[in-house]
């Protein structure tokens, strides 16, 4: 990876300022994200957590917003504009920045559904041809390379993302997610989203 001035500034900030570095001294690009995603990148309302997310995944999503490939309603409303003037290097720097912030689980799912969600996550539902999420996203939903971390994301965000694939949004996402999400029954989506919101 090419190390730019921004990356160096970001790394310096993280090493001196700790987990909450997006204050007054943060570059404009970072502050433009943290208005919605929170100064610690833990997400807020409709904006998902970015802290601890895989940097290749964040970078790919930013480019998908920029290119209008990720076309979910909130993406069109917020992120298409936010990513309109983003160049590839800034996308990469932002992705690295947020990936290095420590994540914090949203803990906002339905507690009673977590056990069912965990079983789906680890074993899938072979009877209706659902593969286990863990095969790609890892035993602790930590993600790997450009495969996103799911652990600790908010219930509402996870539920919405899975539902919207079934409705045809973001159909050009890398396979197999659009197809798998489309096969998940609504109550199983709720169980999965609940479980994942508690994973740390």
């Amino acid at each position, binding site marked *: 990876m090419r190390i730019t001035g921004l990356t160096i500034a970001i790394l310096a900030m993280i090493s001196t300022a700790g987990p909450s570095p997006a204050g007054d001294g943060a570059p404009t690009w970072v502050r433009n994200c943290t208005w919605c995603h929170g100064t610690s990148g833990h997400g807020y309302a409709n904006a998902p957590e970015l802290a601890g997310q895989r940097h290749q995944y964040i970078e790919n999503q930013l480019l998908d917003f920029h290119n209008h490939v990720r076309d979910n309603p909130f993406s069109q409303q917020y992120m298409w504009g936010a990513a309109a003037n983003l160049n590839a290097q800034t996308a990469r720097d932002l992705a690295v920045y947020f990936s290095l912030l420590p994540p914090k689980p949203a803990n906002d799912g339905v507690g009673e559904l977590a056990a069912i969600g965990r079983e789906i996550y*680890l*074993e*899938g539902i*072979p*009877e*209706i*041809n*659902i*593969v*286990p999420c*863990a*095969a*790609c*996203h*890892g*035993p602790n939903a930590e*993600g*790997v*390379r450009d*495969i996103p971390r799911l652990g600790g994301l908010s219930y509402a965000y996870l539920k919405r993302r899975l539902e919207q694939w079934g409705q045809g949004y973001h159909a050009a996402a890398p*396979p*197999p997610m659009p*197809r*798998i999400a489309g096969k998940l029954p609504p109550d199983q989506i709720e169980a999965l989203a609940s479980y994942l919101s508690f994973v740390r």
Partner: protein
Amino acid sequence: MRVTSLRFVLRAAILATVLSAAARVDSAEPGHSRQALAARTEHGGVAAKAEYCTDCHGPSGQGYHGYLTMPRLAGQTPEYIENQLRSFAERSRERDLFINMGRVHGLSPDMRAAMAAHFRGLDPRPIGGGPRNLLGTGKRIYDEGIPEANIPACAACHGPDAKGQEAIPRLAGQLYAYTVKELTNWDRERGQSPARDDTSAVMTPIARALSPAQVSAIAAYLSYLR
């Protein structure tokens, strides 16, 4: 030529069996018992089950790098695929993984045969990915073995083009990371059920004798082989 047409006949016979089984379930079982529903879903859903397999093993069965490395299935011998599916179901392969491989790979014997026939017929380009500087060494070990270390030529059993035959798997085009992992962990992943006689024992002494560098070289060579 003769072998090819025999394979075609076999595949047709397997498909015919699967389809007639589906018809039987539909006509003879009007009830909605859980067993009947499950049977109908499975027999009626060869295409859906093939999609389920490719959700992890790649759209054309070429393999996929997730958190786990999912092996290439395309062009694999049907006997080998059926044997592995049975090994997972009987918990003699990778039984300590965080995923319940027996449940995930649990298919009826008819569906095992249908999936094996399906992936046999696919031929996507290999993903590759092994270090290119090892190809020469890898090919030499594959073709000639390492006589001074008592390691036989891989080609002797897996064939000069690594296409395998019957229960001996095709290795051509297999993912680099997968071949490395299998040869490194052979004892811990295969033949884990003492109750079941397992052909994987043939590979145990060979996998043990190979050094990490030799494993890498063989895996790199196979990862690009069409």
